[in-house]
């Protein structure tokens, strides 16, 4: 409704602006600047009030119904929030055996409607008022364009703040919850503990009710899976990049690169499905044929598939760096009689090494933070083992298992997920920063 009001006011202001323009002829800005100004005057305050009342709807209702809620507090163990919800349900159902409850419910519905009506009336009134202000401001003394531009600048600045606040939000939300966790579990136990079994923490009053939050098995699991992934992705990605940038013709390159980059667009849940249902059974069969005991959910399957996932990532990063090596170095090496392979291994690769290391670190950070593949294929049991054929669990898997499903928000079990998130964030962030520094140093060498 406020929007409709705004458009009306905007149009009116425009008409006014046109007449003023023709009469006085000396306005500070174009008519439509005044029109937009009036529309904003009309829209923004009204919208703000409307949203504020909407957000405070429950508070207002509780304030109106104070007496009823106190009388009916026994219905929901004294929590007025639940009583209110109960009354609203009664209204929807259209009847209740207890006359008092029914009356209160009807009052609740009446107040609710009243708040709705007043909210709308208030919004329209403020919109009209804003419209009048905007209308009166159509005068040569007010420079509408400057005001609008300041407003637009404010919007840009606010958006930038959102992006920045996201980071701050991540750090603070995760940090805050982690601090609460560390007040229950000592950080040293968390970082050095060899035993992870958070499930016991939900049964209160039992022996060992604090649970065991030793994070070492999770780190080991994460490392093993990432190591397997890097063993696939690094050689294949690097060699593939060499082929694309050194051996392949331009035409082959234009066809091959997009084809390989299909792998980038595949969602991780699809990789997880492949890992759990195609690769893991295959590895199990193969292992049994070789006489090995293989868990049906094993780190190897998850790692292999994750390697395929980050392969194109490594490939295109390395390809960029290798292509950036100056042609004069290649030509110099060939002119001195090196074979193409010697040119690549002894001249091009050392020159591109910092960039490749940077890309590799980024790939490791991605492997550590990857969630769906390991959730679906690597298992849940926290085994402290370095054998990739065992079931293993990773930091990300535990975050998901701790937080999926209903949970009390204050239990150490839930807070542990935030502590894990914090360690994950710190590790990936430092890997990214290191890779950034490495790559930057490389750039200085040739510019």
């Amino acid at each position, binding site marked *: 409704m406020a929007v409709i009001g705004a458009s009306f006011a905007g149009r009116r202001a425009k008409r006014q602006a046109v007449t003023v323009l023709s009469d006085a002829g000396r306005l500070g800005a174009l008519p439509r600047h005044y029109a937009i100004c009036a529309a904003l005057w009309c829209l923004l305050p009204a919208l703000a009030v409307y949203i504020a009342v909407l957000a405070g709807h429950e508070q207002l209702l509780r304030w109106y119904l104070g007496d009823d809620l106190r009388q009916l507090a026994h219905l929901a163990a004294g929590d007025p929030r639940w009583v209110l919800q109960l009354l609203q349900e009664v209204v929807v159902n259209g009847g209740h055996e207890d006359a008092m409850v029914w009356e209160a419910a009807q009052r609740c519905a009446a107040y609710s409607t009243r708040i709705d009506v007043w909210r709308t009336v208030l919004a329209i009134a403020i919109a009209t008022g804003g419209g009048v202000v905007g209308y009166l401001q159509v005068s040569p003394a007010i420079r509408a*364009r400057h005001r609008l*531009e300041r407003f637009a*600048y404010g919007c*840009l*600045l606010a*958006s*930038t703040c*959102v*992006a*920045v606040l996201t980071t701050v*939000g*991540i750090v603070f*939300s*995760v940090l805050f919850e982690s601090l609460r966790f560390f007040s229950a579990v000592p950080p040293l136990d968390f970082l050095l503990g060899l035993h992870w079994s958070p499930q016991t923490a939900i049964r209160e009053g039992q022996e060992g009710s604090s649970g065991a939050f030793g994070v070492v098995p999770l780190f080991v699991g994460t490392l093993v899976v990432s190591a397997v992934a890097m063993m696939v992705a690094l*050689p*294949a*990605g690097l*060699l*593939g990049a*060499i*082929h694309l940038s050194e051996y392949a013709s331009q035409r082959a390159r234009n066809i*091959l690169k997009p084809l*390989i980059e*299909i*792998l980038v667009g*595949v*969602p*991780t*849940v*699809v990789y997880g*499905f*492949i890992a759990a*249902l195609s690769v893991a059974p295959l590895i199990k069969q193969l292992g049994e044929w070789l006489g090995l005991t293989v868990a049906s959910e094993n780190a190897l399957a998850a790692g292999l598939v994750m390697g395929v996932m980050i*392969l194109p990532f490594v*490939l295109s990063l390395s390809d960029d760096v290798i292509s950036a090596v100056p042609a004069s170095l290649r030509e110099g090496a060939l002119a001195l009689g090196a074979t*193409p*392979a010697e040119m*690549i*291994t002894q001249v091009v690769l050392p020159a591109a090494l910092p960039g490749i290391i940077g890309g590799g670190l*980024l790939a490791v*950070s*991605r492997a*550590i933070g*990857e*969630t*769906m593949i390991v959730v*679906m294929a690597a298992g849940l049991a926290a085994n402290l083992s370095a054998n990739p054929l065992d079931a293993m669990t990773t930091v990300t898997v535990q*975050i*998901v298992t701790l*937080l*999926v499903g209903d949970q009390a*928000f204050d239990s150490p079990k839930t807070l542990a997920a*935030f502590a894990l*998130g914090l360690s*994950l*964030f710190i590790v*990936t*962030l430092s890997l990214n*920063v290191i890779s*950034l520094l490495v790559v930057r140093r490389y750039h200085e060498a040739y510019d």
Partner: protein
Amino acid sequence: MTDPRHLARRYRRARLLRWCCLAAVVFALSCVMLLLFDITRKGIGGFSVQRLSLSVRFDPELLGLEGLEPRPEDLQFADFPALLSASLAALIPGAGGDGSQWTALLDDNADFLLYERLLADPRLLGTEVGFELPLSGWAERYLDEAGSKQYATLVEAELLSTLDWLVEQGLVHLRFNDTFFSAGDSRSPSSAGIHSALLGSLYTLLVCFLLSFPVGVATAIYFEEFAPSNRWITLLEININNLAAVPSIIFGLLGLAVVINFFGLPRSVPLVGGIVLALMTLPTIIIASRSAIRAVPPSVREAALALGASRMEVIGHHVVPLALPGMLTGAIIGMAQALGETAPLLLIGMVAFVVSPPTGLMDPAAVLPVQIFLWADSPERGFIELTSAAIMVLLAFLGVMNIGAVLLRRRFERRW
């Protein structure tokens, strides 16, 4: 140095490296092919379904109903399994009994389909109606795998021979699986579909786009056109670039702690999912928009300024329209990422079992990748087929979006 064997060894090494590099590329390509082939092989069956043509007479006596005008609540307790058995017995000759042994041929919820039909139109009572009912899971696999004897031990020989007979009579048809596109989630593979998950994804992406595109573009404009170059701004830039590399699951934690616990929004709704995904795609859109703005040559800006435009007018009239295709390309790629994202949505509770399609932004919903995750965990064999089919749908959407982005870039790309 002039030893010919030495030279031969060097050339051998050169060839070796060349072959290794080629092998790596072949490996990567074969991974692409294997992935697509594996999904297609498993999922293609999900789009079709074997149905048995069966004519059913809604006999009030068999159903245990009195009179020809039953109330809906009577129908709820009517004996539809008996009706189904009798209809099957009428179709299949030989073998005595009440026909209940044949119901194993049909899907578990076949009698529910009869109930739904009669509930929709109670006047059908006492008349004969033709149905196409889905076959049961094992029967479908028996037919798919062309008479494989794998099931012979599990299922009575009589049922198998009856199935063969029905096929010979031409009563079993291969049909397009419309349930898959029109139904919500279900415990039974034959009545599960992706309709509500698709709608949920649509709503979530809508929220995501409406939040992240304006904010992302505005941030990019601020950085490229207004930001002073000082240490703080550099820090912010590094910050945003780092945000793009933060694991997606961390955004789920942020959503849980801030959006759900602090602002008190409900779990599992598209609005919250959209907010979380918007925060996640924001860096992608900012980075793409910044490079699009940077690609607009300064001469355009200077010309506009020289003609008396204000800086805002330069941006609004010239820079943004010229950079828009690039920004949209970035937005589409960001949306494609968001469409395939699962992990942060798991944390904000979008793993609910949702049957009915969501009707708004505040209605509990599942999204397509989460649906895939849930189905992949289901023990029933039929769900493997459905999961793969759902993955094919998801990949098709992603493919269309990415191709759209490439076409957009080609169409509007300008060399200055």
